């Protein structure tokens, strides 16, 4: 659920656990899809947390976790320059949206 954004401040105490973005492959043959984010001190913990948080209902067969800080996002101000050139190239759009989240509940 979390697109990357920088926390505005860090309250005192122990350093907050970094934010990780979680990607889940729902079934074999589908690409990993962004499902949300979580906090963990390191990658191994993040993977365990992701498994428990995002695949409690058998939503996935494979998980990626990636430090949110490692993501470089395009700036919304350049949105048109960045994306509009692709707008007329429909043939480049594969089955992009249709990974129904939580297919297992259906």
């Amino acid at each position, binding site marked *: *659920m*979390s*697109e*990357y*954004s*920088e*926390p*505005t*401040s*860090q*309250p005192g*105490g*122990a*350093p*907050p*656990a970094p*934010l990780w973005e979680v990607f889940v492959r729902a079934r074999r043959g589908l690409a990993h899809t962004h499902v*949300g*984010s*979580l*906090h*963990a*001190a*390191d990658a191994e*913990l993040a993977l365990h947390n992701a498994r428990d*948080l995002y695949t*409690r*209902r058998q939503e996935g067969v494979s998980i990626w976790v990636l430090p949110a800080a490692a993501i470089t*996002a395009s*700036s*919304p*101000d350049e*949105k*048109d320059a960045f*994306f*509009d050139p692709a*707008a007329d190239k429909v043939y480049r759009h594969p089955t992009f*949206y249709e990974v*129904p*989240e*939580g297919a297992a*509940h259906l």
Partner: protein
Amino acid sequence: MYGNDFPADDTSSGLLGEVEAAETALREAAERGRHGAAGADPAAYFAEVIAADQKVEPRDWMPEAYRATLIRQIAQHAHSEIIGMQPEGNWITRAPSLKRKAILLAKVQDEAGHGLYLYAAAETLGVSRDELVDLLLAGRQKYSSIFNYPTLSWADMGTIGWLVDGAAIVNQVPLCRCSYGPYARAMIRICKEESFHQRQGYELLHTLAHGTPAQREMAQDSVNRWWYPSLAMFGPPDTDSTHSAQSMAWKIKRFSNDELRQRFVDMCVGQAEVLGLTLPDPALCWNDERGGYDFTQPDYAELMRVIKGAGPCNRQRMEHRRRAHREGAWVRAAAAAYAAKQASKKEQASKKEKVA
């Protein structure tokens, strides 16, 4: 479907259908696309996105008040999920059958998950989870007042599922269409998972209501205690609600407190009949003219007292949360220290490699 979030003839069976409809609408809105730049007037662009029932996404420009309202609302919602684990968590170790124990444990676990989805959604607005947790622990952000009532019997596990989760779902289903993308997506996921919560509660209560006389009495007593606090979950009456109008305009909120409360009462009456339990309101009566039930309003003065901290369990819930946080501090510090050690080992190893 826009502007018609509740299909006319639906009252009880279709909540999950509405969630799915909201999901479809979300995808359709995404497919309608929106090109054309935010450009020189981001405020006008924002207004257009809202007007077109499209989603505002994290890095879009948004009015500061919209951002602040969302942070406040999503954070309260997240806190409610986390604090809301306690009243039910209270009965896990005493669940009267192993099957019920498993169900309750899974349910309370889901609530932790929902809290985390919501904190993640709030974080997209530029606030950190630690900050929000600190605000909760400092008593500067609220959670749903319903969780300040005690769970005194096993039947409360059923009533919470039926009435409290039921009220929450009625509140939350429209949020699946909230204008802020990450919140809407989190709510879709949550509502799908919640539908099991409500059903298990109803089934549990049904079993008790059709069990021994003592079980039946336990069930009725529980409904008597939770009915009015559940009605109060929809918030103060529209005439007194401070945040409603702007939230409706921004499509954060889509129905008024009183509309949702009415809808909830109308749903519950028939469900209580099937249970064979009585809703503790002698004034409850069908009003043909309005096409809904007349009912006694909850005690809003009590609601205000509970919100202000004078409910039966406010102090206990907060202290429980603070204590878990405090007692876990050394574990979180250990995880951070270990991660730092491993990272520096890795760095040294890669330096060595480069030298070699």
